[in-house]
C-alpha cells in the first residue's frame, strides 16, 4: 500500500543533533556524565533515551528543570542514576550507552 505522507512533515533531529542541542541548552550537564542509549542511537524508536549519572540534590533539580525546558518539544526519556548505581548495575556498558559529548562530536564508537 502506498504511504500517505503529509507535505508539511518536518525532518526530525538526529541523535547527534539532539546530543549537541542538549549540551548547548543544559548548562548543568557539565556537572554530570550524560549518555544516549537504545534505539534512538540508530534513528528508530519513538523517543530519545538519555542516561544521566551524577549527584542528587540541588544540582540534579537544576538539571531536571533545564532538561524539562529543553524537552518541551522533544520526546526525551531520561533515566537518572547515582554513580554508585551506575557501577552496581553496569548499565553504561550493558546498554551500550554513548557519551553525549562524543556523539555530538560525531565520534564513532
Amino acid at each position, binding site marked *: *500500500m*502506498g*504511504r*500517505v*505522507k*503529509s507535505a*508539511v*512533515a*518536518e525532518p*526530525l533531529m538526529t541523535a547527534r543533533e539532539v546530543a549537541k542541542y542538549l549540551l548547548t541548552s543544559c548548562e548543568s550537564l557539565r556537572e554530570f556524565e550524560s549518555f544516549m542509549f537504545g534505539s534512538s542511537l540508530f*534513528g*528508530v*524508536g*519513538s*523517543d530519545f533515551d538519555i542516561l544521566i549519572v551524577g549527584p*542528587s540534590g540541588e544540582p*540534579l533539580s537544576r538539571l531536571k528543570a533545564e532538561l524539562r525546558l529543553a524537552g518541551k*518539544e*522533544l*520526546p*526525551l*526519556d531520561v*533515566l*537518572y*542514576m*547515582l554513580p*554508585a*548505581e551506575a557501577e*552496581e*548495575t553496569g*548499565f553504561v556498558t550493558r546498554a551500550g550507552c554513548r557519551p553525549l559529548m562524543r556523539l555530538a562530536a560525531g565520534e564513532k564508537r
Partner: protein
Amino acid sequence: MNWQVNYALKNIWTNHGAASAQHIRDDAIRITMPDRPDVVAVISDAYAINAELAMRYQADFPDMDFLCGYRKECVWEGGAIRYLESNTIGWGNAGTLGSAIHTGDVNTAAQKDYFFSYRLIRQIRSVTNLDREFDRVFTMTLASGRTFRVGMIMEYEPTADAIRTFWDRFGPIDIAWNINPNGYPTQNAIEAGRGLGCEVMKWDELKVLLRNR
C-alpha cells in the same frame, strides 16, 4: 504541524511496515492498515491527562479511536482512564499505539507499560477492592481489611531517584512495585524507599504479602 504529531507520523512511517498515516488537523492523525478500518488517533503533548482533557479531545474529534500521550512522562489520571475505556477509546503512549496498530485492537488498547501488572492484581482473589488513581497508582483492599497504596515502577532497574521522584509526584505509597520482570531495584532505591516509608519490591515479594496479609 505539532512536534508530537510530526514524531508520531515519522515513527509510524519508519517502524510500522504496512501502516500509512496522515495528519488530519491539530493533534489528530488517520492511520490506515490494509483490510482494516481506518483509525483516528489523537496525539497529545500533555504532561498529564485527566477526564476533562480526555472529554475535550473527544468533543474536538468525535471519531477518536485512540488517545496517545506522546511524552514518556505523561501521566494518566484514573478518571481519564475510566472515561476513555467506557467510551471504547484506546489510550496509552506511542508504544501502545504501535502495538495496537498491529494487533488491530486500537479501541480497547490500554497503556501497555502497566496493563499486565494491573490485570494481574485484578485477578488476585484476596484483593477485594481496587481503586486506580493514576495509570501507575492504585489502592487495594485485601480480604483481611488491610489497605495498601501501591505505585507501579516500570523502570528496568529502579534507582533512588525514580523512587523519590515517584513519591514527590504521587504522594506517599506503601509499596513501590517494580513491575519490570527483567531488572532489579538498586540498593540505593531500596534504601530510598525505606527512608520514605515504603517497601520497594518485585512480584515475588508482593505475592507473599498478598497471601499473608
